[in-house]
């Protein structure tokens, strides 16, 4: 469940103040590598600890240090945690982008800025708060070389004062951020926060409307990024072989996993690892190792992004045709080619669904939240072994790398499902087996693992033509029989993939179909369309490919269905085109965004209003 249910803060009846309480976006423009990430996380966490629903979006360059980066914190008493286009509160620390950032603001926004930038000369319709950061940092940070890093903490203090953020919560967030081992660094930074707070209290008369008040919208919730949530899912799925090659934005998935596995997956009896994690030489090797391990019975996985998916293409065809289970995490970024490595997109849907040459089809899961990253990662491993095929978990940079507020994850109730694997005892009982024979009518044969101590256990796995006994064949009838069984297996998967989340509004004539992180923008847009334009909408969020009957029903129930795509070529719609009847296809419209930022509600709302002719 990804909906964030919250109780808005009470507003006093008869209050005429123009205050905007717990409903605004703060954008911080800095230079990457300047330690701003710490200051931004502390600010976001302080709001979270005050019970205010928050989200944080990091827009960063593909660079180590020195290029512009923006972090946007959205506080929303309504629980909207998608990106919001409008910025209410700008913190301008980067001389290079400050002027452009200020010019983009709507009238009435507030700007905290580095005093020498003289941004107040640019416009007269904004609230300006100049702060002499260099003057303030000197006294609190005697060591000159640390000043660049500590300097950013000052804006946390300034903003806390201006927005009425509880300084005790800022302190708590800061201590959490630095951990017990870095108490000295925490003290140093706390000095900077206080200096900012004191300066603001002494200097400014608040003129902008943004302010925060305590509420109870975050009780029991956690803050986590999607990559870490996937990592936890993998660990609790019982993953045993992890092979990977670093690539933005997927690297932190495996890096986080390494950290958790070292802590929680060492066998207490022997002190030995119950897993292997190997950084391969490239994506060709990482998927090859994952398939080798899956073939030998491991729960194996790899994590990558678009360029890696392209490289893995040949091996994925082998995994499909030889029927070897593994799980591939694709944290999508902007393509084609190198594209924009640090921006988000859902641009691999079409290519992944039919990855590799020849006729292939691959199941994909589409988590939309950290909680689903956790649960669907576990489902993916069961699914891969149940259907003996590579399974793709499709997330994106927005979900994978940004911090999200989430409900705590539920511990898995069902035991691990290892699929159809025959043991030596089974073979004794059966007297043998045929690897690719469809005994159960679900298209899935029984397999044995290498090392099984039985004379009938072995078979020969190959990417060349094979018959039911896994023997080499070039016969027309063998080939067709095998391909038809694989096709049937894919049809059976339709009944086993996670069902979509459907919200049917009886008053609506139009609906949305989408997947993954489009969720936040689409649902906020539904509210906007209703309150601003009296347009009633329904929505269906796909959780998996192959599509299910629910999707067809949903389309039948509506006059027009808008398929939301975070890519240029309407790839989700394209996938639907591959299998939908003409009459249903005729109802489909496309809404696309592909600029590389997380999708926002306003973009969708504007597009629907335009297409609906209002």
């Amino acid at each position, binding site marked *: 469940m990804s909906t964030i249910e919250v109780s808005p803060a009470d507003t006093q009846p008869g209050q005429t103040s123009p205050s905007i309480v717990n409903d605004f976006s703060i954008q911080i423009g800095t230079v990457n590598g300047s330690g701003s990430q710490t200051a931004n996380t502390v600010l976001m966490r302080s709001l979270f600890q005050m019970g205010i629903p928050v989200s944080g979006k990091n827009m960063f360059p593909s660079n180590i240090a020195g290029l512009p980066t923006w972090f946007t914190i959205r506080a929303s008493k309504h629980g909207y945690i998608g990106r919001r286009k409008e910025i209410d509160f700008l913190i301008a620390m980067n001389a290079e982008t400050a002027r452009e950032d200020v010019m983009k603001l709507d009238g009435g926004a507030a700007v905290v800025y580095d005093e020498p930038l003289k941004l107040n000369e640019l416009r007269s319709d904004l609230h300006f708060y100049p702060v002499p950061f260099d003057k303030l940092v000197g006294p609190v940070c005697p060591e000159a070389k640390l000043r660049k890093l500590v300097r950013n903490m000052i804006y946390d203090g300034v903003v806390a004062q201006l927005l009425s953020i509880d300084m005790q919560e800022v302190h708590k967030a800061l201590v959490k951020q630095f951990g017990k081992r870095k108490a000295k660094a925490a003290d140093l930074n706390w000095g900077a926060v206080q200096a900012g707070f004191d300066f603001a209290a002494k200097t400014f008369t608040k003129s902008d409307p943004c302010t925060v008040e305590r509420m109870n919208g975050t009780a029991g919730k*956690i*803050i986590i990024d999607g990559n870490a949530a996937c990592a*936890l899912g993998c660990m*609790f*799925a*019982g993953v*045993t072989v992890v*092979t990977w090659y670093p690539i933005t934005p997927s690297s932190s998935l495996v890096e986080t996993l390494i950290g958790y596995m070292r802590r*929680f*997956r060492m*066998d207490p009896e*022997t*002190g*030995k*690892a*119950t*897993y*292997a994690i*190997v950084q*391969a*030489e490239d994506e*060709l*090797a*990482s998927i*090859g*190792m*994952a*398939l*080798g*391990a*899956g*073939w*030998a*019975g*491991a*729960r*194996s996985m790899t994590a990558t992004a678009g360029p890696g998916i392209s490289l893995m293409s040949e091996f994925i065809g082998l995994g499909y045709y030889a029927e070897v289970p593994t799980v591939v995490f694709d944290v999508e970024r902007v393509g084609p080619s190198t594209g924009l490595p640090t921006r988000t997109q859902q641009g691999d849907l079409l290519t992944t669904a039919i990855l590799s040459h020849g006729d292939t089809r691959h199941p994909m899961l589409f988590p939309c939240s950290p909680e689903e990253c956790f649960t669907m990662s576990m489902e993916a491993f069961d699914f891969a072994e149940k259907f003996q095929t590579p399974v793709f978990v499709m997330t994106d940079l927005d979900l994978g790398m940004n911090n999200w507020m989430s409900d*705590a*994850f539920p*511990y*898995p109730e069902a*035991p*691990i499902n290892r699929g159809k694997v025959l043991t030596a005892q089974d073979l004794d009982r059966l007297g043998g087996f045929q690897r690719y024979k469809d005994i159960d009518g679900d298209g899935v044969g029984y397999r*044995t*693992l*290498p*090392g*099984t*101590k*039985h*004379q009938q*256990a*072995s*078979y*020969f*796995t*190959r*990417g*060349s033509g094979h018959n039911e006994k896994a023997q*080499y064949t070039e016969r027309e009838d063998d080939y067709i029989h095998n391909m038809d069984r694989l096709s049937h297996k894919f049809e059976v998967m339709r009944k086993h993939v996670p069902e979509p989340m459907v919200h049917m509004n009886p008053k609506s004539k139009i609906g949305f179909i989408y997947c993954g992180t489009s969720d936040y923008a689409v649902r906020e847009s539904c509210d906007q369309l209703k309150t601003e334009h009296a347009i009633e909408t329904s929505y269906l969020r796909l959780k998996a490919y192959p599509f299910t009957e629910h999707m067809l029903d949903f389309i039948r129930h509506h006059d027009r269905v808008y398929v939301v795509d975070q890519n240029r070529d309407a790839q989700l719609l394209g996938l639907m085109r591959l299998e939908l009847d003409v009459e249903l296809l005729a109802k489909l419209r496309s809404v696309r965004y592909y600029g590389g930022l997380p999708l926002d509600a306003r973009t969708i709302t504007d597009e629907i209003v335009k297409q609906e002719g209002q």
Partner: protein
Amino acid sequence: MSTTLPPPPKKVNRLGLEVVNYKGGKTTLCAGCGHNSISERIVECFYELGVEPFSVAKFSGIGCSSKSPAYFLGLSHGFNAVHGRMPAIATGALLANRTLLGLGVTGDGDTASIGIGQFMHLVRRNVPMIYVIENNGVYGLTKGQFSATADLGSTLKGGTPNDLPPFDCCALALKWGATFVARSFSGDKKQLQAIIKTAIAHKGLSVIDVVSPCVTFNDHEGSTKSYGYMKEHEEVLQELDFVPFFEDIAVDIPEGESMNVRMHDGSHLRIRKLSRDFDPTDRLAALAALEASEAAGEVLTGVLYLNTQKPDFLELLNLHEEPVATLPESKVRPPKTVLDQVMEELR
């Protein structure tokens, strides 16, 4: 009184298995292909040493050589991977189940051309497995193009000379971390047997480059990978004798003439020097010998390097002794208290 004699007792190995238990399907390679001889040596060695067939996993890439795992050890699981990428499949399988004895068979195109990257990383990791390169310098399945091990000046069937120098897979393996490196010739039964048996006993990566003539596309005058060329240019380094752990070493060896290497499983490899002084535990000397033999137009065969001490890849990973693939759920899914602890840290 019956006059029929009882049938002679079947010949079996120490496991009670017959040689037929180590055979595979009928070969589809050309008659006289060196690869078939290598398959026969593999059958003999695994049979004679009494290796459990189900403990072996066979791996190959794409090409004539890579077809051959279907022709031996039919009771072992096999995986015919994609072109040049067998090392990744094998590495993954051995990570999943470290108790498997990995046997990879590949060719010179599969290893030295498309697969050079994966080959080098397999070497660098010292993955414990046997890696046999059936080296004929030519692409057979696509009808006779040069591979990256073809010698400079060696000619194709139609007379076209190769204008590039070769990769020497043994030199690469020596330089970057393999712990058993040998070169042999498919026509040298005794030497190849001793080398394959040593590889079975070795704990670490065994790279065995076997010159294995392609009778259809590269066995002509002008080829440096032909039977004829090997007859004239093979320079045998040593006389090799492998004594398995379950047999006694009875014969004394004269001091200075031979060395006796104790393998991980208690077997011994007895190495008797021939014409030249060569120490197979000296990696740099082996590299120098390969350089010198190449310059002299010789094909040096025998054990080039053997290191029984260096830890292999799986040891370095601190991997569980049991196959991780089949550890029970209790070992691979942490309890609820762990999830609770992690959730608390994220609040």
